[in-house]
Structures are given as C-alpha cells and as structure tokens.
C-alpha cells in the first residue's frame, strides 16, 4: 500500500502553525482518543478477530447455549414481535405476511377443564377466539366466555404492578419476600380447581417446602354439590360427562344445560341439536325440564314443569321411586302427574336416557340422579364417569376448616389464586385479616386484593404458558399469543412455583418439564406437535369404575326436606354473563342481554307475576323503560337489595338472583370529566372507573344457607331503572305473543303435526300473502342493480350468499352475539344508552313468550329468534338512502358504505326488521388505548353519525375471495364461515353460496320447514328460518 502524504497531519510545533488542516476539534487539539482511533487503518474492533475464550468472548459452551436458546426462542413465534423493529423486514420471514392473521392453538382454562381454542393473531396481537375443531372435545364452536375473554385481555383496569400493603412494589421485592418465608410457615392456598398437570407438580413441591399446606379447591360459581353427590353415590370422585347426542330422552332437574355457566354447554348444545332433526328417520329426542326459573333450556323443552327449586328433590325422589332406586317417601310431588309418563319414557329409552341435575340442587339430588342413570343403564352411553385422579376431599369441608384455622390465627400465609373469596364468601374477610401474609394473585385490584398484603398481577391465559386436560381428559397446552402486557404479571403456576422454590420459575420451563416427563423420547418433535395442535393426540382419561352405593344415596338425601315448605325461596346461581364476577369488568358481557330477561348492566330479582303480586311489588313500564321496585331479600340475617324483574313462566314463590355483580374493582384510570357542552364524559363507558363499578349488587351474602334458601322479601324502594333490550317482556307478553303468531314471525308445530303436514310453516303465513311475489314486481324491478352489467360481470357475482337459521336447534345462548361483537368491532354504549334504545349489537336474539296451544299465560312457552340483517334482495333500506350509502353487492349482500353515509337514518326507519344500528355518538373517541388492540383490523371502526349493521362478515368473504383468486379457483362450500355460524354451539346457522345447488345452505333451504320473515312485503330476505318442531309426549297432554 502506498502512503500518499497529501496532507501532513503530524502534530506540528508551535501554537498556531500555518497551513494547518484539521478534521475535527479533537484532531486539532490532538486528543488521545483521536490519535488512538487514527492509529489503525480501520475503526476499532473492525479488524479484530472473532471473540474467543481467550480475549473475553463467549466460551464454546456459552456459544452453544446462546444459539440453543435463540433457536428455542425462535420457536416461540406466537409471542409478540420485537418492538424495537422500526424498519421493514429486509428478508421477510417465510411464515409471516404482514396483515394476514395467523391462528395458534391454545386452550382456555374454565370450570376446571381446558376449552380447546384457536386464536387469531394479527401481527402478534390476538383478536378473535374460535374453537379448535381438530380437538376431539371441540366441534369448533365456542361459548360466550371464550369469545369475550379477548376483551378481558385488554381490560384497561387490569392490575399492572405488584402491590405491597397498598403501595406500588415490584416482582423482585415480592420474590425476595416469598423466598424469605420460613419453611415452618403454615400456608393455606385457596385456588380455583384446575386440571393443570404442571400445577399438580409444583403444588407437590410447595407442599414439601412448607411445614403445612392446606390446599382448598374452591369454585364459588358452581358450588360442589354435584361432586358431593357423585362421592355419596359411588364412594369416589370422578368427572361426569353427559353426552346429549346419544340421548333420546333427557330429563333436566333444574339444570340449565345450554347456558354459558354449564360444565360444557358447547358439547351439550351440539349433542342436543344433533337429535333435533325432525326429518331424521330416528325421530327427535325429547327434553323434559323441571325448573323454577325460566332458562334457555326450559325454552327448548318439549315439556316444561315449573316447580320451586326446593321441591325438585321431591320430584327426583318420586321419579327415582317409580324407577325403583328410591324406597323412601317421595314427599310433596310423590304423585305428580308427570312421574309415571316420564319414568315410562325414560325406561323405554333405556341406555339412551339421561337425567341431569342442576348445580344448585343439593348433593342428594345429584346422588339420586346418579342412581337413576345407573338404573336406566345410561352409564357408558349418555353418562360417562372419567377417572381424573381428583382428590376425594370435600372442598366445602376443607374451606370451612381453612377459614376456621385462619380465624384462630393458626395460619401464617394465605395465598388466593384465581379466586376472590373476600367477595364470594360471607365472613371470609375477617378470617383473612387475621393472617400475617396475605398474598393474592389476580387480574384486578379487587375485593380480595385490597385486603391482601401482597398483590401480584395475574397473566391472562393468552399471555402465559399453562396446561391441563379437556372435558374428556385430553391433555393440552395453554400457549401464550402475546407477551404479558404488564411486566409484573405472572401465571398461577409461576406463582406456586415461586412458593415452591423461592426462586423465579418461568412458566414455559415448568410446562415443558412436565410434558417432557409425559412425552418421553424425541421430546422436541412431540412437543412441537403438541404446541402446534394444542393437545396431545390419542390420550385422555380412562373411564372410572363406579359402583353404586344405595346407602350412600340414602344418606345424601338425609336432611333434604321433601315435604315442600310454604313461603318464598331464593335461588342463587352463577350469572350467565359475568359468571362468578370474574367477567364483571368485561363490557361486552355487561352489555350482553341476559338470554331470557334481556336485562343488561344489572342483576335483578326475577319472579313471576303471581309472586310479585303476592309480595306487592312490580315494575312500572314508563316511556319504554321499566322502573322496578327494589326489594330486600333476607336469608338468615343477611340481606341484599335488588330491583324486581317480572319473568313469566317461573315457579310461584321462587325468586332468582345471580352472583357476580356489585364488584368493587379499583381503577387507576382518571375519571373523565368534561365541560357542560361536551358529552364525552357521558359517552365514555370506561370513563367512570372500572366497568363493573356500580353495576348490580353482590348476592353472595345470601349463600350462607346454600344456593336454595327460604327468603323473606320486603319492598324497600321503587323507581329503579332496569335497562332491557326488549321493551315488552312481562307486562303485555300475552298480547305480544299474539302479534308474533299472527304475523307469522315464529312458526312452530309438534312432530305429529309436522308429519301430517310438512308444510306447516306455509300455514303460518300472515293473511295477505295469497299471491306469489312474482305477481307484484317491485317498483324498480326493471332496472334493479342486480341485473346491471357491472353486477353480472363481477367475479363476485358467481357466489350468492345466503343464510339459514334453524329455530329448532337455536337455544338462544348468546354466544353468537358476543362473537359478532368481537369480530365486527361493535361498541358498547352503557346502561343509560341501552335504556334509550341505542344498543349497537348487529345480531340480536328476539325472545318471545307464546301462550295458547296448551300453554297458559302463567306458563307460557319461550322462543328465541336470532335476528341478523336479512340481506333482502329487494332491500327497502337501499331504495331510500339519498346518497347511495347502502347498496347491493354483486354477491347479493346488502352493504353499508360507512364513509359515504351521512346518517339520515331513513334506512333504519324503512328496515322492517329494525336491524340497523346508528352511531348516535362517537363511541370510539373515548375508548381506552388498550382496547383498540382488541379491534379486528379487517373491519372499519365506525365514526359518529353513520349507520351500521350485520355485513354477513363481508371481511371474511373477501378474505376467502382473495385466497381463491390467488389460487385461481372457485370458492368452495364452507370456505366462508361467518362469526355467528362459527361460534354457534348448536349448529343452528348455515351460511353459504345459494348459487351452488350442492352447498349446505342450498340444501338446507330445501327443507319444508323453511320460511322467510315478512315475506309478504316482497323484500326477499336472504336469511331463511326453519320452523321449530317440538316433540311432546303424546301421553302427556
């Protein structure tokens, strides 16, 4: 190399040399760094050799470790992508296309089992939950809690930091505190039952570390009388699964089989609906329901008997006695008119019979029911007992003992996991306060958290690793889709791991360790498959060997009063929307109309009109809203005050209340307050603290004497506004029912009538439809856009979308409503706006009571009708819009062009189905930032002043169109699935291409039960309904 001395930069002598050229001030000053930097040809480090052990680099071993770790981390593609990335990929990873969602398998732990899921993730952000249809226990459908759980992930009121004695602390401090706990500590753990295998491992480790660990499986929402009943009847515990699909005759004793609160409502609905096809050669199954409230299961019943919950034991005893498994006195319903017929029906069905008792019923009834099923031979077909290695300990007794210990000061540490005992257990708070170290792991700063010394934020199930078993015992993993939104948040197993070891135990490592033991050789391959699939194939619980103990049943029945008491009873159950209160801060669920009362943002004391009259209470309908009397319910000295709701069809003298309301969650967000001219504070549903704040009343104080208790009711106040999405429920139910019938909205027949006259739905047509539609061409028929050149030549024109809703299987469970909300970014408007009739749900479930045809006003039938946009071919909305903001697509859907809409609301007025929803305010302006992450990026978030409505999930249609177009093929049937269809546990919704005669929807439209609503208006809806057929027992008039 030739050095060219062009510029001499050697230091010159003298202070101000002439002709001095310099590159920087440090050069001029001749600083040390500059000379060092200038000494070499290349910049420092650039010419050094690779770092080796010798010169301070990583050792070979470290290198291998690091590379191994990065390989492992690369496997965690589900985790949030690194936030440091500010430039687009130079080389895009092969499996990632920006903006195209990816689905990951995971599971949601709920009610002690895992519910297998596929979760959609947009660029690392989970937005939508679906069922994992590959899983043996999943049909691909889900229920409303799974759907709504996405919103809980982004809940702005989630606890973000560790708290110590009310002050903000951090995880390190907490870890130090736990590791310093003496091993002589006496520990009580109150945890929701979990199926996690990893939890079982760390729990054993924890039990070894401390002197005494009392572990209480506590599940406040459902109680444990069912488990007690099984133990009493068989002397051992087992997991009970019901297969409604195999059942021909089903008797529900106060069991709400299809409600979200059930153990597996998805399977129950799917199984039940499979047996409800009136065209099937096997005939339909038959459902008898004996219940005190009016549940959606009661709405599906072929025969429904309203009866006080406290008297159902007597009914069960009478049935058992008729079937020969009970020799005692059956009590008040011993000679009930139904007994012989129901028993005969059950006996005929034999192994295809099924009797189910509700969670609220005492252990004795569950034991009796187990005995009946055993006698009928149902075990192994409709009832299966699985060996889940559950401890035989009675959780209630354990809990009582633990509370006694705590109160006596014999406990040093209490750890509450995924439970909220201060809120749920009356009197727990006092015992809790006597413990020195009170540690709570939870998602909110709630009732228990504010009383605890240490509060650790809990991860959402989509944020942390976990595992467990599904309903039938198939082991699966809970895979996180996003790194915890709050760095301090930890999962249950991590928490117990810390207690077990005193050091940080990463959940991922713990779960892998558990599975390593299980999967054995070639672990990595097997593990990858398990994570990918969400479950381990080909495994599950074995069936448990159960032998009935008659004496056990008898002893369980002891103490149950079969005589039937006069006076009013209160029945306390988990809420179908907020469960035990864990979903109380979920705005989607708070605004979800209760499936039967249609009440939102409140819990109410439901009673039938006769009971209300007897008690001298009621609800006044004024200007479209119910202003209810407030009653005080008193059970053994504890009382709560609730507004009254009049629900027809309930048992006399029975008052129903639900748990989970009246939560007290501390929100750290500032309350919004705006100037008088600005209504942002009014429209901000999230602006008044936590969502759950001020909503309803906690009825847990009434549970001291069990879930069914005699109650004294007195009126304490009146004029309480109860918001309901359906205006006329109780007060003129009869009148509305007649209108529904004469307008042919909901058409029903019995199976005999159907067989005699398969076209019964045609008889339901309202009077004017004497001629065919074709005789009355619409005004614009000649130039209807559907025939225009642009339409016909469009590629989309090949598919003509339509939907069929089977009213025979729809239970009205509400899952579709939440799924629609999650998929389509539907906003929540709050109680007051709902009471003003401004709820935004695109899909609503219309509930009607029907009397007549053997049903009296006191004991009406209940029917549910899902009501999405009907996508009329001759849409009245399109013809009146002055700016063409709602138009027809070439594929036959009615589309809403949000950015063209000026908001005249004429379309909504002219919609005979009233499915259009108007944005009266800007609902997204005030939305907390974290909730924006829950939005589906494929669906426009609507602004103020525009109309919106069901789009048939047009984003999904176009997504499928895109794929088919790239692959240069036609769309296949079943490729497009709407959100409501996908979630429906009962398979009541079929969607597809009407122009394809072989598509499922085309075939279903050929059913003779098919009809369109308001057909006589000639609007030609693309949504058809299939009339309901009931299967009553001919011997039971």
């Amino acid at each position, binding site marked *: 190399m030739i050095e060219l001395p062009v510029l001499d930069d050697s230091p010159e002598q003298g202070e101000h040399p002439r002709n001095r050229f310099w590159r920087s001030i440090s050069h001029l000053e001749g600083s040390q760094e500059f000379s060092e930097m200038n000494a070499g040809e290349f910049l420092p480090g650039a010419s050094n050799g690779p770092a080796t052990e010798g010169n301070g680099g990583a050792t070979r071993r470290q290198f291998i470790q690091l590379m191994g770790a990065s390989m492992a981390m690369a496997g965690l593609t589900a985790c949030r992508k690194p936030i440091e990335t500010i430039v687009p990929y130079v080389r895009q990873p092969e499996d990632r296309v920006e903006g195209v969602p990816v689905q990951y398998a995971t599971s949601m732990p709920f009610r002690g089992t895992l519910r297998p899921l596929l979760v959609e993730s947009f660029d690392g952000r989970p937005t939508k939950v679906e069922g994992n249809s590959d899983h043996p226990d999943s049909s691909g459908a889900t229920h409303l809690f799974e759907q709504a759980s996405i919103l809980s992930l982004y809940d702005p009121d989630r606890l973000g930091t560790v708290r110590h004695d009310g002050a903000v602390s951090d995880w390190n401090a907490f870890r130090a505190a736990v590791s310093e706990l003496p091993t002589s500590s006496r520990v009580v753990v109150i945890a929701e039952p979990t199926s996690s295998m990893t939890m079982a491992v760390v729990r054993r480790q924890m039990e070894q570390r401390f002197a005494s660990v009392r572990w209480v499986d506590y599940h406040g929402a459902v109680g444990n009388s069912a488990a007690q009943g099984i133990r009493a009847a068989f002397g051992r515990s087992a997991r009970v699964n019901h297969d409604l699909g195999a059942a021909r005759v089903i008797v529900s004793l106060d069991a709400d089989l299809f409600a979200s609160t059930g153990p597996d409502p998805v399977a129950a609905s799917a199984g039940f609906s499979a047996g409800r096809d009136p065209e099937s050669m096997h005939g339909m199954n038959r459902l008898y329901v004996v219940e005190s409230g009016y549940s959606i299961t009661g709405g599906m019943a072929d025969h429904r008997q309203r009866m006080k919950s406290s008297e159902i034991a007597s009914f069960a005893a009478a049935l058992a006695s008729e079937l020969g498994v009970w020799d005692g006195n059956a009590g008040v319903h011993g000679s009930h008119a139904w007994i012989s017929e129901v028993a005969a029906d059950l006996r005929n069905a034999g192994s295809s019979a099924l009797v189910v008792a509700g969670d609220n019923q005492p252990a004795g009834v569950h034991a009796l029911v187990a005995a009946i099923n055993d006698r009928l031979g149902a075990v192994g077909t409709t009832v299966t007992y699985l060996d889940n290695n559950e401890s035989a300990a009675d959780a209630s007794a354990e809990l009582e003992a633990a509370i006694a210990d705590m109160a006596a000061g014999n406990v040093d540490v209490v750890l509450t996991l995924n439970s909220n005992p201060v809120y749920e257990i009356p009197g727990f708070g006092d015992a809790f306060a006597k413990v020195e170290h009170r540690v709570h792991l939870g998602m909110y700063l709630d009732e228990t958290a504010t009383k605890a010394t240490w509060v650790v934020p809990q991860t959402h199930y989509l944020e942390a690793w976990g595992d467990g078993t599904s309903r039938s015992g198939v082991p699966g993993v809970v895979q996180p889709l996003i790194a915890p939104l709050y760095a301090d948040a930890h999962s249950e197993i991590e928490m117990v791991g810390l207690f077990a070891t005193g050091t940080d135990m990463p959940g991922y490592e713990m779960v892998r360790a558990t599975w390593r033991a299980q999967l054995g050789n070639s672990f990595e391959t097997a593990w990858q498959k398990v994570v990918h699939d969400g479950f381990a194939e080909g495994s599950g619980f074995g069936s448990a060997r159960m032998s009935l103990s008659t004496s056990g049943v008898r002893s369980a029945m002891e103490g149950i009063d079969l005589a039937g008491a006069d006076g009013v009873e209160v029945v306390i159950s988990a809420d179908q929307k907020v469960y035990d209160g864990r979903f109380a801060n979920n705005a989607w669920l708070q605004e979800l109309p209760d499936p039967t009362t249609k009440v939102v943002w409140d819990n109410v004391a439901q009673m039938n009109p006769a009971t209300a009259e007897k008690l001298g209470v009621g609800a006044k309908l004024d200007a479209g809203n119910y202003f209810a009397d407030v009653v005080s319910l008193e059970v053994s000295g504890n009382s709560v005050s609730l507004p009254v709701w009049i629900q027809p069809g309930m048992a006399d003298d029975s008052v129903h209340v639900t748990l989970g309301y009246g939560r007290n969650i501390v929100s750290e967000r500032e309350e919004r307050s705006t100037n008088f001219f*600005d209504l942002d504070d009014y429209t901000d549903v999230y602006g008044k603290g936590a969502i759950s704040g001020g909503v309803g009343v906690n009825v847990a104080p009434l549970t001291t004497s069990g879930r069914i208790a005699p109650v004294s009711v007195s009126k304490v106040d009146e004029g309480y506004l109860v918001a309901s999405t359906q205006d006329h429920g109780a007060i003129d139910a009869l009148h509305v029912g007649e209108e529904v019938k004469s307008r042919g909205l909901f058409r029903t027949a019995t199976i005999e009538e159907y067989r005699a006259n398969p076209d019964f739905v045609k008889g339901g047509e309202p009077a004017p439809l004497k001629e065919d539609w074709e005789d009355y061409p619409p005004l614009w028929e000649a130039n209807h856009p559907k025939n225009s050149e642009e339409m016909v030549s469009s590629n989309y024109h090949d598919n003509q979308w339509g939907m069929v809703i089977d009213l025979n299987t729809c239970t009205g469970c509400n899952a579709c409503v939440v799924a629609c909300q999650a998929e389509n970014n539907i906003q929540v408007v709050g109680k007051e706006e709902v009471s003003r009739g401004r709820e935004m749900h695109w899909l609503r479930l219309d509930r009607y009571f029907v009397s007549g045809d053997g049903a009296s006003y006191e004991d009406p039938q209940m029917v549910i009708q899902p*009501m999405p946009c009907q996508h009329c071919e001759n849409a009245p909305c399109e013809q009146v819009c002055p700016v063409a903001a709602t138009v027809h697509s070439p594929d036959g859907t009615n589309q809403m062009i949000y950015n063209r809409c000026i908001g005249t609301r004429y379309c909504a007025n002219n919609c005979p189905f009233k499915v259009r929803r108007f944005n009266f305010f800007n609902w997204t302006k005030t939305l907390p930032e974290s909730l924006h992450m829950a939005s589906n990026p494929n669906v426009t978030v609507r602004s103020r002043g525009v109309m919106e409505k069901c789009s048939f999930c047009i984003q999904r249609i176009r997504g499928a169109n895109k794929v088919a177009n790239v692959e240069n093929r036609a769309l296949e049937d079943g490729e497009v699935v709407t959100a409501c269809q996908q979630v429906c546990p009962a398979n009541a919704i079929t969607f597809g291409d009407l122009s394809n005669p072989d598509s499922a929807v085309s075939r279903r439209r050929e059913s003779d039960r098919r009809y369109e609503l308001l057909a006589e208006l000639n609007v030609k809806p693309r949504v058809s309904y299939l009339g309901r057929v009931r299967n009553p027992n001919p011997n039971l008039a």
Partner: protein
Amino acid sequence: MSTASTDKNLAHLADFHDEVPLVKGNLKFHDITEIVSSHTEKKTPFAWYGAFSLALAGLMLLLGMIAYLFWNGTGVWGLNNPVGWGYAIVNFVFWVGIGHAGTLISAILFLFRQQWRTAINRSAEAMTIFAVICALVFPTIHVGRVWAIYWTLPLPNQMGMWPQFKSPLLWDVFAVSTYFTVSLVFWYIGLVPDLATMRDRAKGKIRRLVLGVASMGWTGANRHWRNYEKAYLLLAALATPLVLSVHSVVSFDFAVSIVPGWHTTIFPPYFVAGAIFSGFAMVVTLLVIARKIYGIENIITVEHLEKMNIIILLTGTMVGFAYITEFFIAWYSGVQYEQYAFVNRMFGPYAWAYWTMMSCNLFFPQFFWFKKLRRNVTFMFIISIFVNIGMWFERFVITVTSLHRDYLPSSWDYYTPTAVDALTFVGTFGLFFTLFLLFLRFMPMVAIAEVKGVMPEADPHFYDHEGDGHHAEHAVEPSTQQ
C-alpha cells in the same frame, strides 16, 4: 256633485266587485299608502324592540342548540333504534306545512281572481319564506354527519358519485329548494311597485339608495305595469303546481317507505290539505295580532279573516276526513300491520298525541260553522293556536307512532324527546319571529298596489264625476305631513 250620485256609483261598484267592500273605513288610495308605508318610516316603537329581543333570544337559543348538537352528535336528541326520526322531521314537516299558505294565497287565489287575497298576501308570503327557512334548518341538522350534507346535491365529482335519485329525501331536496326559490322570486316581484312607492317617499339618503336599488327603477309606467302583470301571472302559474307538489313530495318521505302507517297512498292530497290548513291557521294567528298593533284593521278586515276561517274549516274537515279514511282503509285492506298501526295510534302509548291531534284538527275547527264564532277575532285566534298545535301533533303522530311499533314486536320501543329537541323547536320560532319582525319593520306588510287595485277607486270610471282622487277628504291624516 251630489252625494247621491256618488253613493249610487259606489253601490254600483260594490255590486260589481263584491257584496262587502274589501277595504273599510272609507279609505282612499293615499290613505292606503300612508297607513302601510308609515310603519316602515316612523321611529321604531319600543314594543318592537321588546318583541325583537325576545325573538333574537330564541334565535340565539336555536344556534346554541345546533352548536351543541354538532359538537356532540345526534345522540343529544331523544331518537332511538326504532324511532330514527323524531322532532327534527316533525318540525320540518310542520314548518313546510305552514309555508304553504303564502304561495297558495298569492298564486292560487290570484289565478282564481279572489281579490280579498290582496290584503293578506304580502305577509302570508313573507310567512311562507320564513317558515321554509325554519323548515330547511331541520333536514340539514338532522343528519348524523352534517359536514357531508352536500352529498345530497348532484355536484359533479371525481368519483362519479351521484345522489341516489330513488330516494324521496333527494326529491325533498329539489322540491323544497325549488319551492323556496320560486316563492322568494314571486314575493320580490310583488314587492317592486311598493318598494318604489316607499322610495318615492324616502327621506334619508341611504334609505333612498337602498330602496332605489331594490325597486329596480320602477316608475309606474304603463310598460312597467304590463311587464309586471305578465311576470306576476306567469310566476303565479309556476308557483301553483309547486304548492301542490312540495307537500306531496314531503309526504313521499313517508308514503314511499314500507312502514305501516306511512305507506299510504292518501298521503299527498292529505298532506297538501293539512299544509293549507296549518298555513292559514298561522296566517290568522299572525295577522290577528299584526292588524291590531299596526292599526290596519280597515285593510285586513274581519271579512278577510272570516274567509280564511272558512278555508280552515274546509281544509280541517278534509284532513279529518283523511284521518277517518286512513282507518277505513287500514281495516278494509286486511293488512294486519296497517290495522295494528292505526289501533296503536288510537289506544297505544301515544294515544294522548293522537287525541290531541284529533280534537285540535277535526273537532275545534267545526266551531267555524257558526258565523258569529268565525267572525269573533278572539275566538278565531284561540282556534288558530289549537290548529297550529294540532297540526304539529299530526306530524308527530305520523312520524313517531308509526315507527315506534312496526313489524317485529321485539324492536318496539318508546320515543321520548330531550330538552335539546324541545329547545331547538322553540328556537326556530325565534328564527321565524326575528325574520317576521324585521319584515314588519322594514317592508310594506300589505301589498299597497294590489290593495289599491281592488278598491272602488281603481275603477277607471270612478273619477268620472269627481276630482283626481288626491284632493278628496282624507279619512286618515297623513302622518308624514305632521
């Protein structure tokens, strides 16, 4: 010249024109000019300021309510899901209806040679224009995104996006704007000779200049009169179908829809009759006050008012007949939705509104069968207020009761207006009276030239035996000469 021969002449002329003279108090041409012009020339009375500040306060209230609405959104009103149209549309139809009398009086009665119209047509036309302005406020502000309202106009744009011409709302845009334009031009043409009269009397320089420009060089020349009469006749012929079309088109907003209670073929004639009914009631309300305060009882006489009351009686009965026909058709059609909608109107949650409408519109005007009552100024004022209320309720009943319970009982709800709804409506009265008071203050409230045309002196032979009419004794001392 004997008085006997004058009397004879007058009696002859009275026979020729009408049984009762249209102008009373033995007024001469100049008296008319004096009486009408003086109110625009004299010092503003204190009472006017009082009334004007009240009206202005109402206008400010309207602007405040609109600002509140625009800031927050349509949710400040009481609308809900089944009831997408409430006060705004009710008020729109109400004001458009009121805006019917003016053009009817000036155009249709002109074509029918009803000379009594001359005394009232100017103020009735002013009322029309102001009422239509009030009406136009509502369709503009009732949309959810007011900043995009211009999309309803057929403006060429780069998207090639036109309004949807099948929508009755779009027809409304054209119908009401055409009606407004024609009414304004018609009113202005009629004003020209009177503005010239005022110009000739004007004292101040500015006043002279303004009136000079506004009267467009009118000199009263024969050629001017010929052109004027021709233009006026043509405009009257043009305005006449508009009177019928505008409210027919407004009624299409309802009739073209499929909402039970709206979808009714009787709507166009029934709405037009209703509009004339309410318009005349409003004219009576306003003129009963104005003629008293401004001392023009000899020009707008009880005979004028009586004739209007007869029209109120006629149109009110027509409207009542339409109500009953609707019921009959609902029953006769056998359409149960229609039947339910009408039974629900009578006995449903809004029965109070229905019976208010029925009593105000059908029952109360029947008092006008009695001559004594229809000539009693106080009584007719009360009835006219009732009719105004009744006609507002008619639109309320049609709009709200039909929407709140339509096809699917699950979506039934109740509409309750908010304070903003009510105050916005009150505010439009502020707008209306602000404009009307300005009109009374600065414009000739009676068509001077036209009234003169129907006076006996207008007969070409009136002065055959007398002077030139300017030197006869005046019944009223000219105020400007004081």
